[in-house]
């Protein structure tokens, strides 16, 4: 049997030592009629056969990485330097587990500490955790955290927050019964998308206000007035960010965010049909004991050597059980490592260059598309690297035609934003070339 090294002779020796004649005796505690149920599963395969079967399934897909990809919406096709995968797939990182014994886990623990530090530098915030599952659940836990800190339950959200992030937050917060959501309106006015000013929606009942920068629709806003509204009312400012855009954009700490979350996928993580990804989460020093998740800190050993340990443990489920800040245990350590390696390789100049490329290519594409008869770009300036397009046909139809030319068109918004069912969200990254954009525009023109 694969991966089971015991030989028949060894098995026999072991059974004798235990004092039973077969392993059946070790399963007598299972109720008789339920023991050894038939399994309607195929027999096992050789490595060759399993490889063949799964390669066959992979071949039935058309990956975005092999098409001209203009799809974004929270997950992005970005450049991943080769060293990221090479280092993160080392068995010493890949096959280790939770660093319960720090003396033999300094690789994992130092990498976690470096990840936390990089998130703090990128976000300009005081303290970050070792990761959450993804950006959406990080947001949900940030809102729970804000409720704990303020002892309020109402949640104000900008209409620019990713609709699926809002949906995950609603699942976690029991929006049906226990938490009131107030969501800012989004409408098309004077030929452009207008996201309502949420500062007007914030009062003393709000635990927090959640905004996203760039918004789901790609826009950028000045949050100075919102920070002032939070100061006046005691609501916490929670920002959802795309960490790659922070190569250029003002970070959440500089806006005065109390809690900042984001999806780390753009930073060196393959799209992989939805995951695994990594939730980034940071907050102010004063709130650190309310932060969920694992946190690594510096410690010194009996000989004065510097090392790293998991710390502030009474926040966590294995210590505080039902009183923990969260139930999270296994998180996204290896994906966080990929992010750490990516940022180490890119450095501040590389990250800025990547962000600027996304910006420039998207602005070029938007300008070309806006000039096409029958097409409107609804996202107003300032925007970053995504923009909403309304075309002469339903976006699903447009995308079917584009796919014939090897182009993955923008995300049709029917499911996520029903009021914009006739629109699609287009995205450009540093992986798009001018030639790809010109080909896209030519195809759109021809429709």
């Amino acid at each position, binding site marked *: 049997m694969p*991966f*089971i090294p*015991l030989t028949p002779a060894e098995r026999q*020796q*072991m059974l004798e*030592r*235990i004092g039973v004649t077969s392993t059946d005796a*070790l399963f007598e505690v299972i109720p008789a009629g339920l023991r050894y149920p038939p*399994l309607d*599963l195929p*027999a*096992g395969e050789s490595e060759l056969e399993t490889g063949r079967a799964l390669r*066959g399934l992979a071949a039935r*897909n058309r*990956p*975005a990485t092999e098409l001209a990809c203009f799809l974004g919406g929270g*997950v992005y*096709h970005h450049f991943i*330097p080769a*060293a990221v*995968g090479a*280092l993160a797939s080392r068995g010493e*990182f*890949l096959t*280790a*587990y939770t660093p319960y014994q*720090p*003396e*033999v886990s*300094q*690789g994992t623990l130092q990498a976690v500490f470096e990840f936390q*530090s990089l998130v703090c530098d*990128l976000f300009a915030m005081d*303290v*970050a955790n070792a990761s959450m599952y*993804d950006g*959406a659940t990080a947001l949900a836990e940030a809102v729970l955290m804000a409720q704990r800190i303020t002892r309020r339950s109402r949640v104000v959200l900008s209409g620019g927050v990713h609709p699926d*992030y809002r*949906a995950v937050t609603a699942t*976690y917060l029991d929006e049906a019964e226990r938490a009131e959501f107030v969501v800012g309106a989004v409408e098309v006015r004077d030929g452009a998308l207008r996201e309502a000013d949420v500062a007007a929606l914030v009062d003393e009942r709000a635990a927090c206000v959640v905004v996203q920068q760039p918004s789901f629709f790609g826009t950028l806003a000045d949050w100075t007035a919102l920070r002032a509204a939070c100061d006046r009312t005691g609501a916490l400012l929670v920002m959802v960010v795309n960490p790659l855009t922070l190569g250029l954009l003002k970070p959440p700490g500089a806006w005065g965010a109390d809690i900042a979350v984001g999806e780390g996928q753009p930073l060196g993580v393959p*799209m992989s049909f*939805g*995951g695994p990804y990594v939730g980034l989460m940071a907050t102010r020093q004063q709130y650190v004991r309310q932060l969920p998740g694992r946190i690594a*800190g*510096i*410690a*010194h050993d009996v*000989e004065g*050597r510097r*090392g790293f340990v998991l710390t*502030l443990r009474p926040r966590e489920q*294995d210590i505080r059980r039902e009183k923990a800040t969260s*139930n999270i*245990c*296994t998180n*996204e*350590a290896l994906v966080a490592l990929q992010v750490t390696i990516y940022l180490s390789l890119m*450095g501040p*100049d590389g990250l800025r260059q990547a962000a600027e490329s996304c910006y420039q290519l998207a602005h070029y594409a938007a300008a070309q598309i806006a000039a096409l008869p029958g097409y409107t770009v609804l996202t107003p300036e*300032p925007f970053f690297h995504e923009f909403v397009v309304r075309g002469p046909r339903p976006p699903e139809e447009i995308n079917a035609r584009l796919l014939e030319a090897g182009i993955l068109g923008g995300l049709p918004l029917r499911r996520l934003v029903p009021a914009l069912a006739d629109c699609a969200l287009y995205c450009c990254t540093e992986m798009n070339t001018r030639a790809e954009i010109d080909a896209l525009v030519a195809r759109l023109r021809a429709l």
Partner: protein
Amino acid sequence: MAEVTGRQARPPGLADLRQTPEPLLSELSVADRPGLDLPRPDVPAAPLPPAALLRDSLPLPRLSEPEVVRHFTRLSQRNYAIDTVFYPLGSCTMKYNPKLNDELARLPGFAGLHPYQPEETVQGALALLAALEAALAELTGYGAVSLQPAAGAHGELTGLLIIRAHHRARGEAHRRRVLVPDSAHGTNPASAAMVGYETVTLRSDERGNVDLRALEAALGPDVAGLMITAPSTLGLFDEHMLAITEAVHAAGGLVYGDGANMNALLGVAKPAQLGIDVLHMNLHKTFSTPHGGGGPGAGALAVTAALEPYLPVPVVRRAGDRYALDYQRPQSIGPVRAFGGHFGVLVRAYAYIRRLGADGLRAVSEAAVLNANYLRVLLQEWYDVAYERPCMHEVVLSGRRQKARGVRTLDIAKRLIDYGFHPPTIYFPLVVDEALMIEPTETETKATLDAFVAAMAAIAREASDQPELLRAAPHATPVRRLDEATAARQPVLRWATPGRGHGETGA
């Protein structure tokens, strides 16, 4: 294995690293160090956003690629891992992670897929998800499976949300309590609290079962259900399992199963047939996907057919030979994650199930249980075994005997490191004094098990004759015992950044 003697112990590979601490990235950073280059876009430059929206500085470390590679390679050498040593963490199932699975997950036809691609471009991926769901359902006896949860605790949260939805739909929202055995993993009550339940702790009896009288006393019209781990964190299958689940159902509650210990039950028992209504499995435990130093995992959730309408959206649907993602699910609890499940992890689990097949999976559980019982009977000469029963895939010892000599389980664990083993889980479950929870898994050789026993026996002798060796262990690791108490009192949680200080957080 090399002879280990006292302070001269040299676990393979780690000893020299004590002389060469690995600096932080921030300490390796040098101004003007060239990083990665990217091509500049060949388009007319648009003006950047207004300065008020841009950052002033980006204080990230600057390293060259050769330095980055050396830094992380050296860090990796400071870890113990399944790929290097025996790693018997109880309830974590540290089995071998097959390399084929990693290779398949990296195929561009899987890794290069955007989750929002049109369905016709991802039929192979959807087919894989459907096949994995079907296989997990068959292994466990359930009507439906969701692959959306990102980890076991995430599966618990999802399952409890489903239980809450079930009761609300029946007009029984007043069921606000969940029963949790005292041996339960901390995520169980933490998940219940996140869903808004009050937890009631049930004591275990002297044989490690849920105490039936405590259960009966706690059941009532305000109880939503019971969370049970099968086998339990004590490595024991509850001798009254059917009576327990029947009692909960009779009182109108549902049973949640924590399936972290499924490595004992593959092809041996189907949890659905034991009366468990909702079950999560840890694919990074039972199904061999790599633990990654703390994730990514995946917490597949299986439910009875009656609870299927509550599953998170979207759900994979099959119509003939076409697959689709179904978002029209009016009774769904909603999504618990954006973008679906951890597809990269799910590919690995599916490959593993194909590789093993029905007979192979049953052989996994038989060998896992055999290995654990072998350790149990050998170790009981030196250590108290917590319960006088055959165990399943893991065995819980108590360091009571050694405590009487002034040596604690912590010291035994640290001394095991000197012998080249990763320690077992310690101080869990909470119901066993000085607990030591050992799960060998089925992928270990008898020789490794014998070497582990020899080390544990040597440590037991040292506990009597040279206890100071244990208390000062480990001796030859890159760092020795760390002062975690001071670290928590004066937390330093990030490096010093130019212009932002060190981030000492004080209280």
